[in-house]
């Protein structure tokens, strides 16, 4: 067979979000991988500049469906640093507990997805069934299964009382037992090991060179974990290990995630045992003083970075965020080199990608002139309106006028 190009994405059953991988194949072997991002850009950073800080908590919580607490915490931490507000210890503990519960649900979700990608649907069904335990727990604490809305400036919005603490401990016991079972499956089930080991190899040097973060980096022997390196919230008060592995492949990434689950249970038990009394939130000013701050947060997928610049009003001047997937995407094309077509889905899934969280800005590069420019909000808006007017015959300005008139009549 000659070299064929097969598109994985933007729409493909292996991908849960739109992203394009164009794979050149020689038989079943991968020759080259072309990657294109930007199918799900939502303009969140720009939208954040037009909203108040309070509104932005809820906006940024919706960057990602899975690590919603991570993004809102990272943003809030940056704003609190600009405003110079110190949290109560209880608030810090509650934030940490939520973050760790989120890690459990994210890692269990990943385990199921990984099983599905290698055609092991039984693992998907089992791990997602057990994930319901932690989802119910999150719903019990916050009222929501995802997008918990727990965070606010200066603390958290809901307390975790004695009864809830007890429920968490019971659920964690059940989850720990199940996780042990999955660790056993991952290390003993022969077809699963055959499909995972040696796949998507990336060396320790490449991990450092390409700036890989999170479990993907740790599976290649990079002992980096923001919770340990730059402790935030209550992580400096708990004792846990950074799980690393030297397999450097998808199998290693599975072991790291399962190992991290076990550490997470340990962390939650310590947090609940040492939970201090006190207020859950302190008063926070509506206007944030001028200044800037960067905050780092170890999301389930890796290090999440938020940058906030305040200008003394109630709206931020600039918000910049880097989701962990963006850092990891570089390494995906390296991992895919010289693998089989059958390994593409699991290799991509092994970084636990979150493509819509990653898509960030529009940069138009003109290859003929070699120039590059970034479109600003106003131009982009005009361009959109014109495109619809000329190509589709829809005029939004007219429509908007019409709607405005209707509203007046009402």
């Amino acid at each position, binding site marked *: 067979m000659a070299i064929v190009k097969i598109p994985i994405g933007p729409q493909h059953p292996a991908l849960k979000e739109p992203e394009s991988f164009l794979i050149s*194949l020689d038989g079943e072997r991968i020759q080259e991988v072309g990657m294109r991002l930007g199918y799900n850009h939502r303009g969140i950073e720009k939208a954040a500049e037009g909203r108040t800080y309070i509104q932005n908590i809820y906006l940024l919580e919706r960057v990602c469906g899975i690590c919603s607490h991570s993004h809102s915490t990272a943003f809030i931490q940056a704003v609190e640093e600009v405003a110079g507000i110190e949290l109560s210890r209880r608030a810090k503990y509650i934030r940490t507990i939520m973050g760790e519960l989120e890690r459990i649900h994210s890692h269990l979700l990943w385990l199921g997805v990984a099983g599905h*990608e290698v055609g*092991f649907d039984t693992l998907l*069904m*089992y791990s997602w069934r057990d994930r319901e335990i932690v989802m119910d727990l999150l719903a019990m604490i916050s009222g929501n299964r995802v997008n918990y809305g727990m965070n606010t400036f200066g603390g958290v919005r809901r307390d975790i009382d004695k009864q809830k603490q007890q429920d968490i401990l019971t659920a964690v016991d059940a989850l720990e037992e199940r996780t042990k079972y999955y660790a056993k499956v991952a290390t003993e*089930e022969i077809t699963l090991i055959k*499909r995972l080991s040696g796949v998507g190899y990336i060396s320790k040097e490449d991990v450092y060179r390409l700036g890989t973060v999170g479990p993907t980096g740790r599976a290649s022997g990079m002992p980096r974990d923001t919770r340990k390196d730059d402790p935030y919230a209550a992580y400096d008060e708990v004792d846990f290990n950074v799980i690393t592995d030297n397999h450097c492949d998808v199998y290693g990434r599975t072991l790291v995630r399962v190992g991290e689950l076990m550490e997470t249970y340990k962390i939650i038990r310590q947090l609940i045992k040492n939970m201090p009394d006190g207020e859950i939130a302190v008063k926070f000013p509506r206007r944030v003083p001028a200044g800037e701050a960067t905050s780092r947060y170890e999301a389930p997928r890796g290090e999440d970075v938020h940058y906030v610049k305040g200008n003394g009003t109630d709206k931020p001047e600039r918000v910049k965020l880097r989701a962990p997937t963006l850092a990891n995407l570089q390494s995906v094309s390296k991992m895919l080199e010289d693998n089989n077509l059958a390994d593409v889905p699991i290799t991509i899934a092994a970084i636990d990608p979150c493509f819509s969280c990653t898509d960030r800005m529009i940069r138009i590069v003109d290859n003929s002139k070699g120039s590059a420019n970034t479109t600003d909000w106003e131009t982009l808006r005009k361009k959109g309106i014109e495109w619809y007017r000329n190509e589709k015959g829809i005029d939004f300005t007219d429509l908007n006028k019409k709607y405005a008139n209707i509203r007046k009549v009402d």
Partner: protein
Amino acid sequence: MGIASALFNIIVFPGFLFLGVMGLILEYLDRILYARFQNRQGPPFYQPLADFIKLTAKEEIIPEEADRRVFKFMPIIALTAATTAFFYIPMWGTSALFSFTGDVIVVLYLLTIPTVSFFLGGWSSTSMYASIGAVRTLTQLFSYEVLLFLGILSPMLLADTWSLSESTIYYQHHPVMMLLNIAAFAISMIALLGKLEKVPFDIAEAETEIVGGSFTEYTGRLLALFRMAIDVEMVVGASLIAAVFLPFGLMLNPVVAFILYLIKVCIIVFLLSLFRTLFARLRIDQMVSVCWKYFAPLALAQILFVMIVKGVFL
């Protein structure tokens, strides 16, 4: 045999209608077992029929680039070949509807035709995913087909015949001999998994890699026929294994023998679903190496064993 009774045999029993109903029942059984093994609710009993009716009502889209004739013809070929194979298999008696010396070879070849038609259908649709799926179908064929032939060969050698009906008669008189073929039974089950393209050998239609494999471009009635062909293949494959490896109780009252036949087929489907639950999908190179490195020598050893037993003790 009169034309009327021949038509009855072809269309109603044990032809298309019986096989179709049986295929849908077995598909339901497979799906519900798979679901229960995975801790899921599973579909209601009429789901396979509902799927079939829904698909036949859907629009039929044929890609512009595709070879229209081959594309439309292949599902019919697959279904008829699988159905024809059924006539030569003894199910609830010691004789099949038709039988002659060498019919076992005809059955095995008729069972190969659906696989080849999957390849041709996929290849003629010219889509990238379908082409890769088609090539995988053929690659897979080369790894399990030989196993199936070797697996079926061993009991035939022991019975010293090339006819399925004669072999069942032999095992009626020497029931203990069935126990000598256990390894061949295991190998044939594995080969059947490959033939039906089920996990761990569903490489040719690996959803997460190549969307729908050979069937990616198939829609509507044509897809319904293909799926029906796979269902019928499952019935025929299970019946073949039941006839060759579990040929007990065929001399009994026909009604009892028929119920016994159903139980045998259900046990085989149960085993297929169990394998499907237990394993992850192998890669194509892994499948080829597993089949040739471990199962093919095992099949040969089984044949050698049977020949020695035959030479020394019989």
